[in-house]
């Protein structure tokens, strides 16, 4: 009896061990695993894109979305797994430098040949490794209804009569400060939405707002606006020549805000967007990806036709001719360590998404991308008001868009350091000179660590 029992137990152990070792569920052969960067549209991917693609081609698709500001850590842990992401994203040349050991060459794929401007792709040593999939723009989003109400005031202090006439920091400042003085009549709590500084929410400042002085400095150094990114990407040092201009707009945001300075450390970007959507403020700095955060908010009071962009005027010379900031930090790579079948399927997925009628419909109307692909006609552009504004600003020949130069920032650590310094400046525990010094020192250190 005892003997039988021990035999049974041993058999049980023997059977359970390999089971334990295997763990997890086996995923389907050749599955396309896409690690998505954009949390705003995570649900569109899982609820609409996944089933549509599987139905069209029979290839299983799995889209996983990294939490806001957690893409790099998520990618780092996911890519070591036995079923790694097949499609992942890098944010530009700096990102590609980190991940180029994992990126497969893409020059022979259909997606690559669909680019209207092939030079937009990221290449190294004659191979294309990353393909941009969306062009985005940002600036100061304003609510034209509130602006019209302001310009209709009999005792306004400025001579202009519409928000479209604002074309320099001087006018912007005059308008904003006068609006603050009249905020009760206008029914707003502040002109600008809260300058969100909660952990993970400071990217609108340390990356996006900072882009303008960064671009201006490297435009001067390289002598050409289109060379600014390349110059920034190679720069060992950063002078912050235009720190005073950055401070102009930064202080304007802080002094005319919905929230007092002491509360900003707890605000996140969704709070700011909600304040704008609810009509508590007239302006918020953000890009066209924020459309869903305005239109989708319950209690939204802003009409589609009233949502418009202003460039980030901060007192640079000749800024009347400056447009909004247009560019991309969204490049797709295919993981060359994934199974060949999965890689081939990934190419098929991208081709389907950006060239089939069904895929294009999802891209324009549900994902809301302004794509850089020639498979999209002029009519096949997103219809949300901010995306339309971006295309209008891009088409406006009297201004020149500011290219996204922040992809040349040497590391994520630089952004974290600069963001912390900005928060300390708000809290009053750091003066502006120290903020500038932090930006310079951190750049020098990170550039050296990055091997420049």
């Amino acid at each position, binding site marked *: 009896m005892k003997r039988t029992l*021990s035999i049974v137990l041993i058999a049980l152990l023997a059977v359970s061990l390999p089971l334990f070792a295997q763990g997890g569920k086996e995923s389907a052969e050749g599955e396309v695993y896409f690690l998505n960067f954009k949390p705003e549209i995570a649900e569109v991917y899982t609820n609409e894109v996944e089933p549509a693609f599987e139905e069209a081609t029979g290839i299983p698709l799995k889209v996983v979305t990294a939490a806001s500001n957690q893409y790099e850590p998520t990618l780092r842990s996911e890519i070591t797994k036995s079923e790694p992401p097949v499609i992942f994203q890098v944010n530009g040349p700096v990102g590609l430098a980190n991940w180029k050991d994992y990126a497969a060459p893409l020059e022979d794929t259909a997606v690559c040949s669909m680019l209207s401007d092939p030079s937009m792709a990221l290449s190294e040593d004659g191979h294309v490794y990353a393909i941009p999939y969306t062009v985005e723009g940002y600036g100061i989003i304003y609510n034209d209804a509130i602006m019209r109400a302001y310009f209709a005031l009999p005792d306004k202090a400025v001579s202009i009569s519409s928000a479209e006439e604002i074309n320099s920091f001087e006018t912007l400042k005059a308008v904003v400060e006068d609006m603050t003085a009249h905020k009760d009549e206008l029914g707003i709590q502040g002109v600008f939405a809260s300058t969100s500084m909660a952990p993970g929410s400071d990217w609108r400042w340390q990356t996006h707002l900072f882009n303008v002085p960064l671009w201006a400095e490297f435009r001067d150094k390289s002598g050409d606006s289109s060379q600014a990114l390349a110059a920034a990407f190679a720069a060992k040092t950063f002078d912050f020549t235009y720190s005073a201009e950055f401070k102009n707009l930064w202080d304007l945001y802080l002094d005319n805000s919905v929230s007092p300075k002491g509360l900003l450390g707890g605000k996140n970007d969704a709070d700011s967007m909600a304040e704008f959507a609810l009509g508590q403020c007239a302006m918020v700095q953000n890009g066209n990806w924020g459309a869903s955060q305005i239109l989708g908010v319950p209690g939204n009071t802003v009409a589609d036709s009233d949502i418009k962009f202003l460039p980030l005027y901060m007192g640079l010379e000749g800024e009347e001719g400056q447009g909004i900031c247009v560019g991309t930090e969204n490049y797709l790579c295919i993981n060359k360590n994934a199974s060949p079948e999965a890689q081939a399927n990934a190419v098929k997925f991208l081709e389907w998404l950006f060239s089939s009628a069904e895929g294009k419909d999802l891209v324009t109307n549900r994902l809301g991308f302004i794509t850089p692909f020639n498979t999209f006609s002029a009519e096949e552009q997103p219809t949300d008001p901010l995306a339309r504004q971006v295309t209008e600003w891009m088409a406006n020949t009297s201004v020149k868009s500011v290219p996204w130069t922040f992809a040349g920032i040497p590391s994520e650590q630089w952004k974290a350091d600069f963001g*912390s310094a900005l928060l300390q400046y708000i809290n009053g525990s750091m003066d502006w000179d120290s903020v500038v010094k932090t930006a310079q020192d951190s750049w020098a250190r990170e550039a050296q660590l990055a091997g420049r």
Partner: protein
Amino acid sequence: MEKSIRKWFALFALPGLVCFAVAFLVPFVWGFILSFCEFTTITNASFTGFSNYVRAFTVDSYFTQSFVFTLLFTVVSVITINLFAFTFALLLTRNVPGTNAFRTIIFMPNLIGGIVLGWIWNVIINGVLAAFGLNIMSDPKFGFWGLVILMNWQNAGYMMVIYIAAIQNIPQDELEAAAIDGANGWTTLTRIIIPSVMPSITICLFLTLTNGFKLYDQNLALTAGQPNHGTEMLAMNIFNTFYSRMGFEGVGQAKAVIFTIVVALIALIQLRFTRDREETA
């Protein structure tokens, strides 16, 4: 019987040993080796020697800064948690009505996870500070005291239960004898109660000490180390080094090794110290 135990011991211990090896030994040794390497993903590393250990201290001062912060926090929280827990235990072992209800209420916060508690206190503290136009991110000292309050809230109840069990185990006749001999409350406490519960004090000190050092989720939910790394504790600094800085994976690993050694050392010293007092008591 004895013989068959010896005969089958290895086989039956095997599943446990395999689990221990898979979940602890292998990662530990691997992590130790990785601390001498440069790598992006842990399966693809190249040896670089001690440079990671040097860079942990030279590239920025955040590691030493978070070390000091963690040490301060641990000292303060160990003292306050144990004081509160012991006081509660003393109060709730008297025959007063409602003892059970109070014990339950005080123990309850321990059932809530660290992240949730962190968020709850984040909201409470911000709510209070908002009256002054401030925020928990405004000054590192808010984050520090917030963490102390949070940890007291969470752990005092747990430690209290341990102390209650110990106090209830003190033989009643010793206390009676003391009372007959005319010992006052203070003498009874210092001469009878504290020496008798010394083993529990060891356990509680040990638990609060290591808890303080290893704290992560409460730290993350309450302040996430802001402002400017001012409330960043060791575990968070290590995590951020490893995951948020490209090229610093090995440095994070080196910090983790230092961290493990320090925590192990402190715990050993503390254990030895209180053990000695237990024996003499």
